[in-house]
């Protein structure tokens, strides 16, 4: 997929009070779809080395479907958008990532069913997402999964929100911490997912789901920053 991303829908500008609205959520999806498409081959290559080589395909298929679904959908709240993302990913991604991201977005949608989300709200949303991943996948930090990106991301988001950060700042803190967390998977032995079959041979390679999580969180931060 090398088509340009759908143009961000014209919506209200940044809320002066520092909250995110449905327009942000739509911009986030557009950014995410683009960056996932751009990294399709790279993500599958990570997965080829320690998994079955389809993570990029799976994510690209899912976000292409999300883009198409969103074009036709009426959405009033951040939660509306995230719920559509959740159900679409659930029904198009397949593999492990489909139910995991699907549940993450579903839980996040549940705590963001309001017209505007502030810094603390962003933290709650990310926290709910992580809880969803853990509820389904039962992975802990250090198992070399997407949890290794999400867990530090949520911690950083908590700190930034407590410090009174704007949603954009909270998301930026989360994305940066996720990147560090994803990099930390390089040296881990996988204990969950397909990579666990490799045992020690999984060391020295980055977890693909952690890598795609960084892409999504970074897209969210950029969508907020550019607002």
């Amino acid at each position, binding site marked *: 997929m090398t088509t340009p991303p759908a143009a961000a829908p014209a919506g209200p500008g940044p809320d002066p009070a520092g909250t995110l609205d449905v327009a942000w959520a739509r911009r986030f999806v557009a950014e995410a779809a683009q960056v996932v498409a751009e990294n399709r081959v790279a993500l599958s290559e990570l997965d080829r080395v320690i998994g079955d*080589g389809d993570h990029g395909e799976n994510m690209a298929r899912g976000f292409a479907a999300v883009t198409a679904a969103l074009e036709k959908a009426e959405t009033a709240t951040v939660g509306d958008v995230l719920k559509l993302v959740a159900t679409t990913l659930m029904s198009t991604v397949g593999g492990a990532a489909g139910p995991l991201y699907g549940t993450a977005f579903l839980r996040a949608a549940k705590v963001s069913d309001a017209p505007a989300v502030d810094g603390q709200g962003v933290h709650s949303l990310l926290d709910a997402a992580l809880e969803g991943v853990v509820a389904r996948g039962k992975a802990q930090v250090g198992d070399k999964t997407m949890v290794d990106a999400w867990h530090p991301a949520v911690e950083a988001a908590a700190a930034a929100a407590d410090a009174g950060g704007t949603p954009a700042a909270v998301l930026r803190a989360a994305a940066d911490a996720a990147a560090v967390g994803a990099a930390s998977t390089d040296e881990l032995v996988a204990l969950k997912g397909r990579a*666990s079959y490799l045992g020690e041979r999984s060391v020295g390679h980055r977890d693909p789901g952690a890598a795609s999580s960084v892409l999504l969180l970074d897209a969210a931060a950029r969508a907020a920053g550019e607002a």
Partner: protein
Amino acid sequence: MKKLINDPEAVTSEAVEGFVRAHEDLVVQLDQLVVARAGGAVRGKVGLVSGGGSGHEPLHAGFVGVGMLDAAVPGPMFTSPTPDPILAATRAADGGAGVLHIVKNYTGDVLNFETAAELADAEDIEVATVVVNDDVAVEDSLYTAGRRGVAGTVLVEKIAGAAAERGDDLATVAAIATRVKDSVRSMGVALSACTVPHAGRPSFDLAEDEIEIGIGIHGEPGRRKIPLASADEITDLLLDPVVADLGLTAGESVLLLVNGMGGTPASELAIVYRHARRRLEEQGVAVRRSLVGNYVTSLEMQGASVTVLRLDDELTELYDAPVATAALRWNL
């Protein structure tokens, strides 16, 4: 990459269409990418549903028919299907006596079937699940994703299918499926990797004189690479851990399945079978049933797996029971 395909993205849908047309006496295709037994669900019979990523043909659609699966859900290549088609298959298989989901133990498959089972439950379809994990190449542990489901899945499907066909209720069919799962172990070897169409390059790298021991069926690399050895030596490397893990002892009876990974000549499978059988018999184990062929494949991968199922009279009888599917057919 050389393949007899049109569009890499359309491989699964075109292959399913071709498969269904070639076997229209046995199966039909539903709206979704679901292959169901021709004639629809059998009233009062427990329905059997299995599925998973494509690329393992004849698994699972090749086992839909009388005496085995009622519906199969082929996902994208090597990727678990999503809950929607699994739910559709579950509905199609339900004859009012509930449905057994036979799931290979991969995180993706487990999670998607889990979700589908929840959705079916919401529609008042009773679902039981057996998660097959016969691959001894992977250590089973509470702290990992656990052993994978590989070729033993066919035996779970066959034997549970016979139990359902003779009228056992859901709990009984599930218990028999679980008994098979607990009595079956497998291990595989790859001489070459396979190439997933949309990836366009081999799933792992092997030198001209290397083989990969303990591979899965999704083109995942195995536990270790070793230099190419003789068929008898390789067979020992596959069979020994299987026998050890099962704790087989002299006097027991087994079914021996030598499964091809898709690109292996039948003659080579027969050579592996020959040695595995000799070795089992030397250990005083009676090989009462045998299956040799391509049943759970990895596209065009060259390699094989050895599966041993501990038999008792009931499992033997259910294995022998009539079956009419595209890939297994006897007594019918």
